[in-house]
């Protein structure tokens, strides 16, 4: 298997001086294979979100490198980085991550518009994704007319519709009740198996962790333990 995500001596420090400097991510080197369903776990402040942001090119790293599908994204800036994220990475955030003035369908369609996908193909893929995440018939609803769980399903559909190599999810179930959260993780797992996409998500929920095939434990910005099931 080939590593779709590879970080080498990845560091992200905040602050300048020795006393005030916070080492959010400190010398992290990991490799994640294609199709893995990986959870980054750890207590609050352990660096899970920062690591996800660095992997996704959402934050500027202090040192080290991040290779996604063989491309070092640390060397990318501006439009090139935006285009890379658009074509290779799907993001799912905690909550409230949909464009509120767009319907569920339009939110899913948005990324394909950025990619310049034709109208007929967009329509087909939106319908397909809505069916996959169990939201048939709800496509025309705006986010404020959907429950938290339904909104996250739309976010999952949006993340997957462009067929990215990697999906990064930052505490995707944090704002959901445990039953809905588990259902959502099961859906992600199912999609992971169906499409062989690489899922990396952060969580500190034990029930969610049990769904992951690999657990990367973080503590104080470092990898404390790397556990494969």
């Amino acid at each position, binding site marked *: 298997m080939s590593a779709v995500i590879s970080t080498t001596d990845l560091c992200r420090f905040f602050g300048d001086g020795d006393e005030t400097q916070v080492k959010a991510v400190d010398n992290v080197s990991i490799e994640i294979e294609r199709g893995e369903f990986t959870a980054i776990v750890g207590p609050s402040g352990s660096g899970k979100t920062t690591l996800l942001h660095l992997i996704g090119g959402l*934050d500027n790293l202090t040192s080290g490198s991040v290779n996604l599908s063989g491309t070092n994204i640390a060397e990318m800036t501006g439009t090139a980085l*935006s285009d890379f994220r658009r074509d290779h990475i799907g993001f799912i955030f905690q909550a409230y991550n949909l464009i*509120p*003035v767009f319907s569920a369908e339009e939110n899913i369609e*948005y990324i394909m518009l950025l990619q310049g996908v034709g109208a007929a193909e967009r329509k087909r893929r939106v319908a397909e994704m809505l069916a996959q995440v169990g939201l048939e018939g709800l496509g025309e609803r705006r986010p404020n007319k959907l429950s938290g769980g339904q909104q996250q399903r739309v976010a999952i559909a949006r993340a997957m519709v462009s067929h990215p190599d990697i999906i990064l999810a930052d505490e995707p179930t944090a704002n959901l009740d445990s039953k809905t959260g588990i259902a959502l993780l099961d859906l992600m797992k199912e999609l992971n198996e169906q499409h062989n996409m690489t899922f990396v998500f952060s969580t500190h929920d034990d029930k969610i962790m049990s769904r992951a095939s690999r657990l990367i434990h973080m503590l104080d910005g470092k990898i404390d333990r790397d556990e494969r099931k």
Partner: protein
Amino acid sequence: MQTASLAFRNLFRNTRRTVLTVMLIGFSLTALIVFDGIMRGMITLMVENITGTLTGEAQIHRVDYRENLDVDLYLDNAAQIESQLQQDASLQAFAPRVISGAMISSSYNVSAGLVYGVDAQLEKSISKISEAVVEGAYLSGEESELLIGISMAELLEVGLGDRIVLTLSEVDNGELAQALFRVSGIVEFGLRELDENFAFTNIAAARRTLGMTDQQTHEYALRFVTPLSLTDSSSDLLNELNNGEIEALNWLELNPEISLILEISRYSSLMIGAVLFLLASLGVINSMFMSIYERIYEFGVIKAIGTRPGDISKLILFEALFIALISCGMGILLGAAIGAYTSTSGIAFGEMEFSGISLNNAIFSEFHIIQFTQFPIYVVLLTVIAAIYPARFAAKIIPSDALHKSL
């Protein structure tokens, strides 16, 4: 297209703020349209008052006469000049005048002033002397008739029929001459200088008192078929008349200080517009930044999923564009409504003197297509330009910072 659609929908996310911003820009445009209309109306009124009250649209004198109003510097070929004036098709009317400084005495008081000897009939086509008569009657051609300004009448404590003695210097020899007149009318121009210092009599009586022949004249006042305006005051006739002895000047050349005032008035709309739109632009910048900060998490998300920085800039600029277009619609409609009213009903400011120019009539706003085309274009451009700074800010948002800020 998607960016434009998203931008348009975003306007309705915080309707109150959008409405307030639209009102700020729209009312600024309305204010500019109305102000410019009033300024144009005021300039027209000022020009009418300058050229219509006494000056005319142009005057002919001997060279150097205007410097000291020296009575010896007269035109002595009246027949030849009048013949030339009569043959010129561009000229609507002209009137000869004899002018002299004089001591104007009543039984009770004395005042220094200017006495104009005018042709009663020809003068009606040039000045407003006949319309300014508030007591008595306009000149009929009788020997001893004298019209005096209302303020002068009060100073001299005279009324209709009272005697007035004019003391002045005869031309060429400088001998003092006196003549007795009776007040046949009192005039009120609403302009202090004219009402306090001017008296008018028949040109024949004035010439006789000054020892001038009927071929000698100090001034010709002219009125053209197509009025000499602020923007086009050139005339072939005036160019032809000018030579080493005679100077023929249009009203702008006769009143260079007024020309400057009118120029300033013309540009006042630009200055007011600049101030208004500077304030409106700051409002737009403020509104846009509020909107960006309110949606910063969303900007983080859309940037994270692959929206280019340039597309985020475009989104903000489109929002500004739509706000500007809606504002222009509102501003144009309101400006047209107010303009329609003020251009037909006029705005009465009461008796007013602006830089020595009487403005005692209602000002009728003047509206031109430029106010409803160019001004809105400026508004749209300025609004979009004002949005560049917030747009650049939004484009530079680092997704991880934006996502942290609202969590």
